[in-house]
């Protein structure tokens, strides 16, 4: 390894340093020492420094003979993942300090999250399916630990167990698929697979090696599990519900984003020549993902389960951009992820604030929020409007670009199905708005727990870290669409992916 490969892996190295600092501190800081109280600001600052350093030394290229690829695009994708983790750190403070036993272990939480993120970095930068697999495993196992973080709570433990079982199962399928691909192509490097597949597709779909197709399908289902596409979504609702809220936010944003990004690179760089094979597969996956995700979301009474299904259908929209197979589609996907991240982190920020104060995650907890906590309600409303694709919020623009990318390939029917689904999704997003603004508050119950404010109103105060994250997310949700330079920037980066 020389300096060049260090520069190529600078983000990973930076992250590793943060990880090690936190690990050492966690191990050596005495049980009751003051240092533990500074963990949250410390990790945020370190993480912020690491993210900013990623912008410096913009070197790109390959390391380890093409195993590891860094481009401006991957750098930006990693920054998007960083953002997700940063918001999680900001929002998790009051949950981690909620009781003595939890506060003692909070160093663990940061260390494990950073380890997950390292795995995601590897997923994004992988230039070889084996390395991708290693990245997925590195990212998955710590997530299971995080999901079971409230280990004395039945649901959280169950979530962790479920995740680890199903994740192992899907990894198994994926690995099996990879072995098929290896058998067919004799290599696991993206570029080489592409070349070997290109030779066999000149005559048409029928002539593609069955091994390759089977391998591709299994590979897709493995990643589909991470992105929680229907029919690989069965873990999603239970894990989202059981996991601590900050972790759910992380799962719904960073974990999903990393898998999407990895899928982009794998599909285009490794299976680009098999476009005709995976396009119809993806088409069908999109339709059932969006539709079923929406239909199940309609019936939810528990807000985290609800967001689980909403995130499933959102994943379907993201796939729409990937399906288009154009540079514009890629831009749209990355942009969509960014907007989705802000909106979802804002929503989960509000959910965790409310959960920490009232201990409730059902819809009833949101009744009358517009009167009792106008600011929180406003943040939540902006977030769900953005998710539903209502202008002038970012979600409108990101949805439009995704649809435009698909329409450019004349996929009008698919666009139309997706659009009808946005109407269904609007219904359930409006249910939250309805609870907050139209339904009267169940004041009696909230009053008991939260601090009573003036004139009988119950104001829930969030800690300042959460407030910062909510403020940034809300600002971004409002401005990201109107400020077109963000899109233009991403558009400049995706050039040459295909």
């Amino acid at each position, binding site marked *: 390894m020389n300096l060049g490969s260090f520069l190529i892996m600078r983000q990973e190295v930076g992250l590793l340093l943060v990880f090690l600092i936190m690990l050492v501190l966690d191990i050596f800081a005495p049980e009751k020492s003051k240092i533990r109280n500074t963990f949250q600001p410390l990790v945020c600052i370190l993480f912020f420094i690491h993210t900013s350093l990623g912008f410096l030394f913009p070197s790109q290229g390959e390391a380890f003979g093409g195993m590891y690829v860094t481009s401006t695009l991957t750098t930006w994708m990693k920054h998007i993942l960083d953002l997700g983790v940063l918001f999680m750190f900001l929002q998790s403070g009051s949950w981690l300090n909620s009781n003595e036993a939890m506060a003692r272990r909070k160093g663990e939480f940061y260390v494990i999250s950073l380890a997950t993120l390292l795995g995601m970095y590897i997923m994004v930068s992988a230039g070889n399916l084996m390395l991708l697999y290693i990245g997925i495993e590195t990212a998955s196992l710590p997530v299971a630990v995080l999901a079971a973080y409230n280990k004395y709570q039945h649901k959280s433990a169950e979530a962790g167990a479920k995740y680890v079982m199903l994740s192992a199962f899907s990894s198994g399928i994926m690995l099996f698929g990879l072995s098929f691909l290896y058998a067919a192509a004799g290599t696991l490097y993206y570029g080489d697979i592409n070349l070997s597949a290109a030779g066999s597709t000149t005559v048409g779909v029928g002539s593609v090696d069955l091994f390759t197709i089977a391998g591709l399908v299994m590979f897709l289902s493995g990643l589909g599990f991470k992105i929680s596409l229907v029919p690989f979504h069965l873990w999603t609702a239970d894990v989202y519900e059981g996991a601590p809220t900050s972790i759910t936010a992380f799962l719904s944003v960073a974990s999903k984003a990393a898998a999407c990004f990895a899928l982009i690179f794998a599909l285009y760089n490794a299976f680009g020549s098999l476009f005709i094979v995976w396009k119809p597969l993806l088409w069908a996956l999109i339709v059932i993902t969006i539709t079923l995700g929406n239909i199940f979301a309609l019936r939810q009474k528990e807000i985290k389960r609800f967001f689980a299904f909403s995130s499933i259908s959102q994943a379907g929209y993201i796939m729409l951009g990937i399906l288009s197979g154009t540079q514009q589609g890629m831009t749209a996907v990355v942009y969509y992820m960014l907007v989705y991240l802000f909106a979802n982190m804002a929503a989960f920020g509000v959910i965790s604030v409310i959960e920490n104060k009232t201990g409730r995650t059902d819809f009833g907890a949101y009744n009358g929020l517009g009167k009792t906590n106008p600011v929180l309600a406003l943040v939540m409303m902006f977030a769900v*409007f953005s998710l539903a694709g209502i202008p002038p919020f970012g979600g409108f623009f990101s949805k439009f670009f995704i649809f435009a990318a698909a*329409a450019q390939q004349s996929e009008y029917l698919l666009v139309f199905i997706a659009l009808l689904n946005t109407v269904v999704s609007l219904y359930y997003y409006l249910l939250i708005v*309805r609870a907050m603004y139209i339904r009267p508050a169940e004041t009696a119950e909230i009053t008991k727990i939260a601090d009573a404010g003036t004139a009988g109103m119950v104001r829930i105060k969030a800690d300042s870290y959460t407030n910062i994250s909510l403020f940034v997310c809300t600002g971004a949700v409002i401005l990201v669409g109107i400020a077109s330079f963000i899109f233009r920037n991403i558009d400049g980066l995706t050039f040459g992916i295909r």
Partner: protein
Amino acid sequence: MNILSLFVAIPTVMLLLLFCIKSQNAIRALMVAGSSALLLLAGVVTFMFLQERAVNPDVMLFVSDTVWYEALNIHYAVGVDGISVLMLGLSAIIMFTGVFSSWNMERSFFMWFCLLTIGVFGFFISLDLFTMFLFYEVALIPMYLLIGVWGTGKKEYSAMKLTLMLMGGSAFLLTGILGIYFTTGGTTMNIVEIAKNHIVPMAHQYWIFPVTFLGFGVLGALFPFHTWSPDGHASAPTSVSMLHAGVLMKLGGYGCFRVAIFLMPQAAQELSWIFLILTGISVVYGALSAVVQTDLKYINAYSSVSHCGLVLFAILMLNRTAMTGAVLQMLSHGLMTALFFALIGLIYGRTHTRDIREMGGLMKIMPFASVCYVIAGLASLGLPGLSGFVAEMTIFVGSFQEQDTFRRILTLIATTSIVVTAVYILRTVGKFLYGELVNPEHANLTDATWYERVSVAVLILFIVAIGVLPNFSSNIISDSIAPVIAGLR
């Protein structure tokens, strides 16, 4: 800054200022000042437009174009022709009167109200398909909260139904817009540009035209997608009903004209018969439904279905006279339906019922409101000298010009709605304004307050103005219809 952008800028500034001020009087002052400024601006733009039009033969005037997303050729492009100028005027009038009709509303109500107006004005000045669609949706979503929070009756149901049906329409619409953009080569989103240089290929026109027309038609209360309208209007608070029936439903008609027919003229000619039948049903069915209603708001909501159906009906006749009539009808219906809803709100606020069977003899108790209601009714049934007559006359004359039997028969059927309109208007007026006092408690009711009078008087002023001086508006209109007609022939 382009003068047209002020139409969006003023309500935006009002919205932001509303976050800062708290006292009810300051809110009222701000709303009155802002809406007067808009009304004034609309007047100035009309005046400037007339002067500019005399020397400048371009399709759109006061054009300004700023690149927004160059990857998709999305521009913030604004410009107006005669029709948009009139629509801007209509919106400004109704916003102005709406403020007076919602005098006692709270701050957050006005915030949503401002957002709604941003959407409406933005839609009418947009020349870019994307921006147009954006403002269209901006105008739709505040309705959910305006009806859901401040409405009456089964408001949750109505608000949800209205929002979902209109958003369903916009799903059609967006598919159509993407279709237009990509089938014309993906080079521009500018409507005028597409109409001039990029004809949508015939094969695609056959699906894009119906999809776009349906998308806008839902908002224009096209049968069978009109069912959101009666429930929505009945549940909405006064000024929201006014804006919604008065302006928002015009977005539908305007969109059908500006996008569906202007950009896909060939398909419009071949497929107009399907929609003519549907709009014909709207016209007659809406009028007949109004006859059997007893709730004042339902009567006017169904009457709106009928009148807005007439707008789409006339647009689909695809000739100059009928289209001129359609735009006149948009103006006329906007003003008189706003007047109706303002008066119904006024009456409901005092009697706490909208059922005509529970009221009677109000003419003696509230003479001002009652007389105004009669004027609105007469305008609605097409009395000469008021706006309704001018509009409907032009529409039916224009429609009957078409030579083929199919269109003539449809026109004849649609004409019957005038008679039916007379039935439900006279029946309503006779029932609750004249006759015996039904509820003795009503004897102590007060007449309109000054702010309610302002709202009503301004509306009547414009209704009479259009009725007496139809040439002013019809000249502005027919000038702007020429490019569309040119595309058709």
